[in-house]
């Protein structure tokens, strides 16, 4: 036990290092392929209200959904989170990115539809200090903490700290929408902007929220019997609701952008509101999640299954050509006299030490239509000047360049295995009457198989993840799935899809490795003596 502990302690630094810098980042990246909490975090109220909406009918969502959307979106806009949500949802439905961006700009205008008449009814509503007095009190600590937690989740920022405002429990009961909007405003003003809540004019959303509260007859009658701070202004507003907009928030949103009335926009939001989604994985295999279930993508958008198959097939071709080219070279290396062998070895290693980009660019110079190979062929008269060979910007280019680049990974394990095969075996076979071919095929070759196994695994796995070389010489039909992963990581920023594609690739490789183990046996692989 002590011994084991001691051993563990010795490897602990390395273990911790590997876990922290390698395994954890990879797992957290892979987790993105199912993670989808951005919708529920950014517009939590809307998601809850939307869960009661039955998307299968043509009925549009209830006014409550739009009210929640207004309150949620307003604070998301303050925290600059609404456009992130738009980008996320745009992966699923084209047009949502600009819908969220443009709506974000007009949220103030919507609030002013209520703000202006309210301020006309009672000028007290213009005063930040009046609002503060009306909303403050005691007993609303729980409510404050609840809004604080929502705000922290939405903005991803630390919202702890003194707010200098506690909503009164009475007002929270009386005006639930207004209390939510005002508390959000107070939290943001105090903690994010570092202002004194009482001195700040409330957000436009607070006026909109008061408009929401004033549509309920029960609230009106409760206001009339209310005697707390701000009672007279509220009663004036309640008495003059005919001066407030007669339409609701649905009309207000649809007025800003008609897409807010579109059934499929809401269906998409509802579909992607759970915290986990299979959506990215479905996209990664050319399927899509629709309100009617899982469907295949239209033919003209199917790409990933093609790319996965192509990657596997081409990696196999590259592995095979590496075996064909590498085997004789390794044999030479292992059987030539030491001096010649070490010179040859340098020739194998030299390209290995050269930068990948340099080697790939060199292939460009060789392979292009006005390149060295074509020039020589034309000069020798093998090829007509008008129809030069197309050796790059296609699958051929990828196979040629990658075979060359990965060749050392085949030669080196082969060489180290062959080095251990005693030449006397072959001689013994020949002395027993075997032909050269039989001696090689029945005696030498079987002993070199572990080297082929090791080399093939190395080359195949490296080939499957390559993307720089295919990008440069692969054109359109020589690119791999990794090129799309790179594209989604660095250009489209759809990291969820990139993670899903990466996970699938990883699982496929592990699966192939398992098959290999079953068929060939992994203990049959040797990297050396």
């Amino acid at each position, binding site marked *: 036990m002590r011994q084991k502990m001691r051993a563990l302690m010795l490897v602990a630094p390395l273990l911790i290092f590997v876990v922290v810098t390698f395994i954890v980042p990879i797992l957290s990246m892979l987790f993105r392929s199912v993670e989808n909490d951005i919708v529920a975090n950014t517009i939590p109220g809307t998601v809850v209200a939307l869960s009661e909406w039955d998307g299968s009918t043509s009925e549009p969502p209830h006014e409550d959904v739009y009210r929640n959307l207004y309150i949620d979106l307003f604070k998301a806009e303050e925290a600059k989170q609404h456009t992130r949500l738009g980008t996320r949802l745009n992966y699923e439905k084209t047009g949502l990115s600009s819908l969220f961006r443009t709506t974000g700009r007009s949220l103030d205008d919507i609030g002013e539809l209520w703000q202006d008449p309210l301020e006309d009814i009672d000028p007290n509503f213009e005063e930040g200090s009046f609002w503060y007095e009306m909303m403050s009190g005691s007993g609303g600590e729980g409510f404050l903490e609840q809004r604080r937690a929502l705000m922290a989740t939405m903005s991803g920022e630390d919202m702890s700290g003194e707010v200098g405002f506690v909503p009164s429990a009475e007002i929270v009961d009386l005006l639930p929408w207004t209390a939510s909007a005002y508390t959000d405003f107070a939290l943001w003003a105090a903690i994010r902007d570092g202002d004194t809540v009482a001195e700040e004019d409330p957000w436009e959303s607070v006026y909109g929220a008061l408009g929401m509260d004033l549509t309920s007859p029960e609230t009106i009658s409760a206001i009339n019997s209310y005697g707390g701070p701000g009672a007279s202004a509220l009663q004036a507003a309640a008495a003059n609701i005919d001066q407030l907009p007669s339409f609701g928030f649905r009309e207000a949103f649809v007025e800003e952008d008609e897409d807010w009335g579109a059934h499929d926009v809401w269906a998409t939001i509802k579909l992607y509101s759970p915290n986990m989604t299979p959506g990215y994985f479905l996209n990664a295999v050319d399927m899509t999640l629709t309100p009617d279930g899982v469907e295949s993508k239209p033919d003209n958008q199917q790409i990933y299954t093609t790319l996965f198959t192509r990657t596997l097939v081409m990696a196999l071709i590259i592995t095979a050509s590496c075996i064909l080219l590498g085997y004789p070279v390794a044999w030479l290396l292992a059987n030539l006299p030491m001096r010649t062998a070490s010179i040859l070895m340098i020739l194998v290693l030299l390209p290995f030490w050269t930068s990948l980009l340099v080697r790939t660019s060199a292939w460009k110079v060789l392979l292009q239509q006005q390149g060295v190979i074509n020039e020589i062929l034309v000069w020798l008269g093998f090829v007509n000047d008008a129809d030069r060979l197309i050796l790059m*910007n296609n699958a051929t280019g990828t196979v040629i360049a990658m075979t060359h680049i990965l060749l050392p990974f085949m030669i080196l394990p082969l060489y180290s295995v062959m080095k251990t095969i005693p030449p006397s075996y072959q001689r013994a076979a020949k002395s027993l009457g075997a032909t050269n071919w039989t001696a090689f095929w029945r005696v030498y070759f079987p002993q070199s198989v572990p080297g082929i196994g090791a080399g093939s695994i190395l080359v195949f796995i490296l080939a499957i993840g390559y993307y720089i070389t295919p990008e440069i010489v692969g054109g359109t039909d020589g690119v791999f799935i990794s090129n799309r992963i790179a594209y989604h990581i660095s250009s489209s920023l759809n990291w969820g899809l990139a993670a899903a594609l990466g996970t699938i690739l990883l699982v496929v490789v592990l699966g192939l490795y398992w098959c290999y183990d079953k068929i060939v046996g992994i203990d049959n692989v040797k990297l050396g003596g």
Partner: protein
Amino acid sequence: MQLIKTLTASTALLVVATGAAYADDHMASDMTLVSWGGAYQSSQTKAYAEPYMANNPGVSITWDESSNEAVAKLRAMNEANNVTWDLVDVVAADAMRLCDEGLAMEIDANEILAAAPDGTSAEDDFGDLLVSDCFIPQIVYSTTFGYREDMVPAGAPAPTDICALFDTETYPGMRSLEKRPINNMEWALLCDGVAKDEVYNVLETPEGQQQALDKLATIKDSVIWWSAGADTPQLLADGEVFMGSTYNGRLFSAIEEQDQPIAMLWDAQVFDLDGWIIPTGLPEDRLNRVLDFVKFATDTQRLADQAKYISYGPARFSSAPLVGKHAELGIDMAPHMPTDPENAKNTFLYNYEFWADYRDDIDAKFQAWLAQ
């Protein structure tokens, strides 16, 4: 013991370094600028960075050539809470995305940028080019075509029309196009009889997208798809392609600086903007330094100076009259600017809003089409 010594020593160093950083009015003395590398970055070094360092001895500027993946890297840095960049050069579309994601700082142009020498406010001087709240424009560039003069078939006129791209009968040979739908789809529709102001309305519909792809399919076998701006000049120089699209500054240097037999085809060039963004969440001393630098580097004279080294149009109205001659070749730069009236007879402006929405969707179709 040794370890403790090392620790003490490095702590002391750290304290000294921090002290130095705070010395100059709470301005950091190091700055990491991110740009595109190549001729463009060196024009920035000469026009902005070197004069700035001459005025502020003790300030050191590090360049990072990561602009083409700036959005992804900045997002990753932000998630790791360790933003090491101070100022990032990006195209306008990326600036909008960074702004959308909250990764770029919103700016007030009048407050942080210098006014024009005649007192015009920065906002008016940059005008419409302030396309995003986070974006500080530097240059107007265009994506346009160059063709090999010596490969124009005998008897055929030199191409003057974008649709020469699709006319493989008159102009045989390969073409090089960027491996993405943006611009290519617009050119395809334009040459398929769609009126210029209808292009995006058509491209919004699945039928229009298919129409554009069908048009591109007519030349698919003659296209080499590029992903780096340097590819087309190289392909043209090697005689691999007859014509190809790229950024106009790249073609300028192939034609004027390297004397290649290439000519410009300005028709239907697509204007785009490139400029700075400041990452969000910089510590105060670094922010102060960056603001100081940006104010200097985007003033009227500096933007005009940049045009001495590269043929991109300065983003300020007030800089245009100051554009002079090329620093080494001594040729007049004005006729090489994409904005020159002679070149800008038929132009497109990159439609940011459209592509922000349709990029994912059309790109999926485009890539699937390419893979077919």
